């Protein structure tokens, strides 16, 4: 057999062997065996000395091509085998993706604090500061500075937990108004604040009363603050909390520390004003009390009521949350049953 034919035979056998191989190891072995220094091609080329000189370049080229072709055959087979192995692996690793995951649960913020923070964020966006207050407050700030002197009948409207004659558990976050007005430097611009917090009243706890609940007070003092400003601000708040289509209405009311005073109703978010159980078939839901700060209250903080005016409002986060989520027992906020708490994950 000529060297030429021998090389061609080696090529054919090599390619066939590569194609038949089933494992990566066999292919590696084949590569070493056929193309290595001790392999048959190298062996065959020892017979080159018997080839006439003029044919030698041709044989050389052939030998290189044979090596290349075998190499290519082995590599392409390796690729095939690899693909098969991966396909098999993927098949074996297929999971039941409907099985439950490993849980990594994040906790739930209390729904009252979610409600409060939502309102806080709204007002921070309008440039309001969030002022904390005292839960134990002086009679002076809780009542007298709010135009409710001793013996005023309005003190009957809110029964108070006193600690001493002059100290009490605050009954309203409005108690913060006097402190904030005293502290504010009006030469630096208007006072715009909200003050959320816990308040206390001497009530028996039942489905609609709690001796402890939350309030959020708002106060803006500047030159030219008007009833229209109050309406626009509360309109925007109610749309933020209860939905963009809400309307509000003012009804005259009475608070000793505002004049004029109003109750604020929001159009029913459930029925849109048609009338339903939630709005007691009126189309409106009472959500907060507000008004222009009484001149006496401003004057007691040394603010000239001829130059400055102010609006104030107070709202109940419990009431907001109860309305928004249909909670019908105020005690649910304070018993902290985790099934109650966790249903509000991420609502605000």
């Amino acid at each position: 057999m000529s060297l030429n034919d021998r090389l061609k035979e080696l090529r054919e056998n090599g390619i066939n062997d590569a194609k038949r191989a089933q494992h990566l190891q066999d292919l590696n072995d084949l590569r070493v065996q056929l193309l290595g220094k001790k392999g048959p091609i190298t062996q065959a080329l020892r017979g080159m000395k018997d080839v006439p000189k003029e044919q030698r370049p041709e044989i050389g080229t052939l030998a290189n091509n044979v090596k290349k072709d075998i190499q290519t055959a082995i590599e392409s087979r390796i690729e095939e085998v690899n693909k098969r192995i991966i396909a098999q692996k993927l098949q074996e690793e297929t999971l039941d993706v409907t099985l439950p995951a490993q849980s990594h649960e994040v906790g739930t913020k209390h729904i009252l604090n979610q409600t409060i923070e939502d309102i806080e964020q709204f007002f921070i966006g309008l440039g309001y500061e969030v002022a904390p207050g005292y839960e134990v407050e002086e009679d002076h700030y809780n009542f007298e500075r709010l135009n409710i002197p001793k013996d005023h009948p309005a003190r009957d409207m809110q029964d108070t937990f006193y600690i001493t004659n002059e100290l009490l558990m605050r009954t309203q976050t409005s108690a913060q108004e006097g402190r904030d007005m005293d502290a504010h430097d009006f030469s630096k611009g208007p006072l715009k604040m909200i003050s959320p917090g816990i308040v206390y009243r001497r009530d028996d706890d039942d489905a609609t009363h709690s001796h402890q609940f939350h309030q959020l007070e708002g106060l803006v003092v500047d030159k030219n603050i008007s009833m229209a400003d109050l309406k626009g601000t509360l309109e925007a708040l109610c749309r933020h909390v209860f939905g963009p289509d809400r309307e509000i209405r003012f009804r005259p009311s009475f608070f000793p520390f505002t004049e004029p005073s109003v109750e604020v109703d929001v159009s029913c978010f459930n029925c849109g004003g048609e009338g339903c159980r939630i709005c007691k078939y009126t189309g409106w839901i009472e959500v907060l009390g507000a008004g222009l700060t009484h001149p006496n209250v401003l004057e007691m903080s040394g603010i000239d009521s001829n130059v400055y005016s102010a609006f104030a409002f107070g709202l109940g986060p419990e009431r907001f949350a109860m309305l928004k989520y249909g909670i019908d027992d105020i005690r649910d906020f304070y018993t902290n049953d985790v099934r109650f708490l966790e249903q509000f994950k991420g609502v605000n």
Partner: protein
Amino acid sequence: MKISIDWLKEYIPVTHTVEEIANKVSLTGIESAPVELGTDLSNLVVGHITSLKPHPDSDHLNLCQVDVGQAEYIQIVCGAPNVAEGQYVIVALDGANLPAGKEIKKGAIRGQESNGMICGLDELGVEESLVPKAFQKGIYVFPSVEEPGADAKELLGLNDQMVDLDITPNRADTLGMRGAAWEIGATYDEKPVFKDPVIDDSKVEDDDNLKINIEADDLVQDYLVRTIKNVQVAESPLWIQRRLWNQGIQPVNNIIDAANYVMIEYGEPIQVYDLDNLTDETISVEMATDGHKLNLGKDDTKDLNHDDLVINSGDQTLGLAGVVNGTSAQVDDDTRNILIESAVFDGTSVRKAAQRHDLRGDASNRFEKGVDTGAVEISLNRTVELIASITKIQSISQVIVGKQTPAEPTVIKASIDHVNRLMGITLSADEMIGILDRLGFSTEQNGDELTVTIPTRRWDMSIEADLIEEIMRIYGYENLQGTLPSGNETLGGYTPQREFINKLKNILLSEGMDETINFGLVSKQEARDFNYIDSEYTRVLHPMTEDHEFLRTSLIPGLIKNVAYNKARKNSDLSLFEEGRIFDRESGHDRPKEVEYIGGIITGKVGTDSWNTSAKEIDFYDVKGIVEELLSFVELDSEVEYRASKEIGNLHPGQTAAILFDDQVMGYVGKIHPEYQSAHSIDDAFVFELNVDKLLAQPKKNVKAMSAPKYPSVTRDLAILVAKNITSGEIVKQIFNDGGQYLKDVNIFDVYQGSNIENGHKSLGYHLIFQNSNDTLTYDTVEKAFTQIKTGLINKFNVEVR
């Protein structure tokens, strides 16, 4: 107060439905609700009992022949004890509807035909306490002749419609029909028309005998009386009776009814007395003598004291001023001569007396909130006129003045510009004056200034802001366009404390803890159980219950309550926290400091039992892990120390650590004591509590950026045998002490005690990580440090290196 539409029509035209009126009045003035009476009543007529005979088969029933305006008399069987021939009565005819779905059908009663029912007022839905006494135990009898077959519902006022005004304390001017007519009239731009009382001058005589002493001058603003001689006490006419019971007032007799009627009409409480029961015809308005009693009849007496303003005559007390009359001079069937009192007493004094004696009522309610001091005399005269019109009288006295304070109208000045600016609208002077005129206020304009004269009936008005409210509400809030405050921009935001609290809360939420909110007022026991801050207890003076009597000194009792509550509802794997105030009072101070705290509790299992995982019982190191993560966000400049502590609250003495920075206690972490745990019916639970304000006050770490290390670290493992009482914390501290500048981290990977370990000892294993950020560490450098560490541990703690 309920405003009768029938009555209101005497003063203003009423053309709208009661629903429309209630809605409009709610939006412009006073929260109101429509009331429609008698919607469940039908087929009620006047019947005249022409004859009556006993039922043959009954000892208490009668067979009545009744003229009900039909061609023939009808027979009705009646069992009422007060039924009698000649009476004009209420008949429910066949097919009549009564309250609670009751329907009357003709039929037979013990074999005798009965074509309807003769009714009592209570059967028509009038509350029994409002039915005149004579008719409480039987049928109602009309006081006068009525047309048989006439509509009884209408005669009894039971088809009236009313607007129920739910007044705020400043609008007591509408606690009278005339005030309400002004208010509703202003809403509809209708001025009410009133007739002033007219007294027959020919009957007026001087009464020189009566003497009035006003002793408590500061509590009595006005005190006027008139006397009437020879009245005939009888039942009131029906038109008075029906208006009273519709107002929730029981008709008694014509004199008392007239006084009550005028109170409703004018809003002025009027009292009447039997003049002949006065001692020496003297009246003294003075403070009660301690121990004196006021007799209210039927064994009901009130013990008076020196804070009570009373009406005395000689040594007998006639009444508690502005609150209630006693029985000693009450007007009854035997009364011939009467004294009528119209007065103004101090509201606070009346309110306190009414509260003190639990006697709040129509009169005290009006004095508390204020009355029109300009209507004292006119309402007195109206009472005289009314009595004279419904009963025969002999003579009337002049007005006898105990005290009279002239009632001056209030004058308020307002700037048109200022009023408009505060409202945020632009009304012309004429528009404002027009609105004020609807309210009956007269106004003079001088340029920008309005001078408004307020009648005495609107004593709530005193300053410009009050006028703004009136103008605004009558103009209509619905016409107000909302704007936002247009002043200088302000920077909003949280305080640094609140920012910090928000951050801490977010860490605990991300640790899987649910946020709770508990009560600030707790029981004495709860205030005591975890009072590790050693605060004095702060108590509220008048707690509603012992459960909420003291201000809390720790968040832990609330969290334990939450765990117990949840466990009782089969929620046993819990991870809860609360951020809130605790109250720390120093002895000698009344006011406690309010300190922000954050605390948590975990109990049950961590992780879940599932197809590929298993839950693990929570232990001390789980809660400590939460605390460590929390503190890693505090950016503290100093090291956190966990100091084993045996004496914190009701915590396990062997599984509790105080948490310290620079020797300052910040809080604690530990396990609930087994005894406390079983007393509260909870499972093993681990808690922590940290003083947020103290954490916030700590110096902050100054973070300077550095590149990630370019050179590899070297890890050496160290295994030692050491006495059991030496803590890992002490070992690690020592390792760092001796480890040189390249020792970066020490991680414990093994704790073992038990077999193969010498008694009283434990085996600890640590990975020590060395790193030089500027160069590759040499073997010699690490070896040298490692040797120093071992030597240090041997010298200090006598460890055996394994």
